[in-house]
């Protein structure tokens, strides 16, 4: 039970996620699947233009990536599947139908586990199926009053996977967490780039309310046009509130499709059930049914990489990392790869984690750069951290060198060597500096001996400054204490 606070209603939410697949070519022809940035209609051929007489040919990698996703989502994969035609007229749909899957999808009945609001949630996956993307329209101004619309078919035919979730989500926050976990999974298994702004990952939501404790579902509304996590959260929050007001006032909701208006921060009715499209699905006669052998399923299963949850658990047990660190280091495959690249070179996992998540991530965030694109390679960081571990460079110097290396790409360890910034651990050398400081800072020395602990910090700082940060701080501390005995010592 998760009543909407202060009400007797419970929200029931299910998401439909469309993900463009990271194949080389389109789903049914050999045009590029990566269409972004190309001149309009340049990435087309008779097949994706829908020219008379052209025929589709199945991109097998598209099928494999969908199967990979289905396995990652614990779906069943039937042996017999087929493509169907979904018929409707629109200028971005060149054939007048979309090749999709209707009653026999590539997979069904799976689940996804994720954390939301501090607890683990398992949501059902109804099905994962494969279809083709449409082209794009560019209107002169707003669609309602534009003088003309331009059709660009560069995107038409790009492999599109539809992941239909069960209505198992109960709050907008849960829906957001589900979407985040799904997105992370898709990126992990390399089937989608997770870019919601550019539309390679899209999300529609179905939401209805019912009295807390009721089994039957209420009247559902489908929400479209949400192109960020934030808009999913806001659109669902808005819609939940709207429906609640209608129901609390004794009104009736209608089954309809509503669009999220980013500008107005509200949902707007697009079409009701009565106006719903009649898609006239029927089996695609240009493509023979797909028979998925068990051997093929196992072949794909073997390609399944370690998934986010498993990796997080392993990072905790294998590297002894805290939960929070393991979570951050497994956020994206690139984060994990970077970390394991550093550790593989012999750096202690805790040190590697601290530095990657601390200094390096801080530099990346400031530069708005993903870690895999930064100029400090895992091996460069490892070399530096080995100097730290071997007490051949102080943490202070290491931080400063790392920051400069982040800008220039020069090896930080090499910079330490070239600039002679190695740690000084020679007691005689440090003693000389300590004695000099005690002469220059006699007041601080007497303050400390008089009981002012903070004065010791100033003295240590002065020695470190004199050594340009190279002196072993432990030895400095130890020598100062020896030189300035206090009654209590």
């Amino acid at each position: 039970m998760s009543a909407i606070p202060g009400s007797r209603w419970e929200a029931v939410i299910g998401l439909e996620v469309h993900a463009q697949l990271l194949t080389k070519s389109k789903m049914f022809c050999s045009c590029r699947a990566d269409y972004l940035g190309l001149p309009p209609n340049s990435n087309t051929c008779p097949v994706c233009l829908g020219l008379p007489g052209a025929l589709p040919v199945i991109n097998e990698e598209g099928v494999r990536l969908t199967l990979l996703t289905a396995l990652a989502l614990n779906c069943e994969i039937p042996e017999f599947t087929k493509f169907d035609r979904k018929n409707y007229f629109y200028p971005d749909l060149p054939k007048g139908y979309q090749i999709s899957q209707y009653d026999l999808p590539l997979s069904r009945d799976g689940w996804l586990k994720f954390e939301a609001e501090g607890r683990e949630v398992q949501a059902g996956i109804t099905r994962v199926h494969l279809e083709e993307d449409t082209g794009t329209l560019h209107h002169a101004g707003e669609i309602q009053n534009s003088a003309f619309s331009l059709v660009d078919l560069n995107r038409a035919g790009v492999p599109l996977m539809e992941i239909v979730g069960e209505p198992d989500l109960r709050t907008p926050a849960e829906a957001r967490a589900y979407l985040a976990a799904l997105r992370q999974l898709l990126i992990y298994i390399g089937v989608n780039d997770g870019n919601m702004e550019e539309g390679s990952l899209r999300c529609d939501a179905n939401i209805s309310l019912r009295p807390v404790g009721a089994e039957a579902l209420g009247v559902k509304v489908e929400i479209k046009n949400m192109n960020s996590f934030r808009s999913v959260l806001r659109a669902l929050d808005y819609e939940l509130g709207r429906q609640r007001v209608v129901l609390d006032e004794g009104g009736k909701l209608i089954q309809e499709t509503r669009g999220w208006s980013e500008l107005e921060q509200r949902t707007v009715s697009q079409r009701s059930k009565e106006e719903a499209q009649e898609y006239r699905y029927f089996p695609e006669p240009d493509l023979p049914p797909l028979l998925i052998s068990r051997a093929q399923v196992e072949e794909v299963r073997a390609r399944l990489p370690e998934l986010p949850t498993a990796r997080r658990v392993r990072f905790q047990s294998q590297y002894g990392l805290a939960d929070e660190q393991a979570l951050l280091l497994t956020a994206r495959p690139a984060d994990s790869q970077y970390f394991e690249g550093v550790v593989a070179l012999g750096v202690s996992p805790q040190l590697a984690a601290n530095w990657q998540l601390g200094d390096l991530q801080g530099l990346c965030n400031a530069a708005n750069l993903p870690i895999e694109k930064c100029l400090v390679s895992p091996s460069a960081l490892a070399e530096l951290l080995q100097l730290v571990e071997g007490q051949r460079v102080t943490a202070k110097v290491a931080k400063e060198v790392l920051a400069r290396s982040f800008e220039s790409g020069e090896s930080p360890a090499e910079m330490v060597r070239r600039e002679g910034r190695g740690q000084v651990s020679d007691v005689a050398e440090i003693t000389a500096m300590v004695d000099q400081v005690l002469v220059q800072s006699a007041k601080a020395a007497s303050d400390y001996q008089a009981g002012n602990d903070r004065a010791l910090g100033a003295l240590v700082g002065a020695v470190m400054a004199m050594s340009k940060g190279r002196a072993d701080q432990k030895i400095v501390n130890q020598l100062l204490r020896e030189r300035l005995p206090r009654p209590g010592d």
Partner: protein
Amino acid sequence: MTLLEESIRELSRRLRDREVSAVQLAQEALARAEELDPALGAFLRLTPELALDAAAAADRRLQEDPDGCSILCGIPVAYKDVVCTKGVETTAASRILRGFVPPYSATVVDRLSALGVVALGKLNCDEFAMGSSNENSAYQVTRNPWDPERVAGGSSGGSAVAVAARLACVTLGSDTGGSIRLPASFSGVVGVKPTYGRVSRYGLIAFASSLDQIGPLSKTVEDAALVLTAIAGQDPRDSTSVQAPVDGFLNELRNGVRGLHLGIPREYLEVGLDAGVRAVFEQSVRTLEGLGAVVEEVSLPTTEYALSAYYVIAPAEASSNLARMDGVRFGPGFTDAVTLQEAYERARHEGFGDEVRRRVTLGTYALSSGYYDAYYLRAQKVRTLVAQDFDRAFAQVDAIISPVAPTAAFRLGERTADPMAMYATDVLTLPANLAGIAGVSVPAGFADGLPVGLQVLGPYLGEAVCLRVAQSLETEAGVWNKLPPLALSSQ
């Protein structure tokens, strides 16, 4: 006497022996078309420049490497206008595709071009291959060369007439419910509907994707076998094309029919056959028996439901296939329309003819929710039963023989007002499309001066046996070389 009366084998010999050049042959074909076609209406457009260029190229190949050339090198051919030809307008005989110049060629065209054939132009047909009389073209009627007041048969009427009138040596048509075999019978030429998947459909403007097949129309069975061998075979661009050997068509052609078991479907003789058609069929049966074939009765009990099933499935697929004709990318656009809906409606209302609109409407209805199970799904079940009928029959016999249609060519306008009468023309041909099996129509005789064909049906991938039976009958019937009146040149 024109060179176009010769068989491919004889013409190829003459080309190799330099008795005639491919350019001369093309010039003769083009001249005949210029002279005779205005009365026939077989060609929608001739492409003389491209033809003469191709002929000149064929002559060079014949000179440089006569032994390495295909037997089809330099042979004049023509394509039904539903077959896409790169750089040559392809309209499917529809207004909605007026001005459509495909940027690519159908696989069959590519294959034949690679062998050096000389394409003369594009042939008339029923709009989007929908029709049995060739009266549904948006541009012109094709007339029967044996009697210009009669239909050529459809939908590949232009393809049949161009061969019958000796305007082209061989042509390609397409057969969805009998569209090659019917006009072949009406015009007195050979027509082959290959097994579904035998010939690539890539570049064939689809009518009903699960039924369409491209096939040759020719003067002789051997000519058809030669062309079929060239165009058949798997195509990576058509996922429904099948991998199967294609060498049997010619190798087994002259094996005769002695000992072959031929079945006559009882139900096919109960469809109201004209007396003349029945007489030709009975004569053909006696001829084949005389050659040693064992003729027996078979039963295809689902026959009476096949027509209804066909006229649900074919329009259903057509309604979807023709959706791309939306006036956006090709055909007449209506940029002055106020709404998108209006632009679509005008493009499709003004672009499609009555019969196409009728079938699109039928098909849309059959696929609509609430009707899908009662129409489309039930029709598919009938289709399975039809195929099972043939499976049982082919367990009993090697091939099936029957008339091609209940009548010979009928008069122009006779059935245009009665779609059901027109649809019934296909009653004996469309079951083979539903079952996906091979069929051949071969000239068998005349009824009241009009040609009548014999239909030979074979099992899946059974073209070779069909061609064998057809070849045997052709040799005995002796009608293949009879010229229709409208083939006579004044030159």
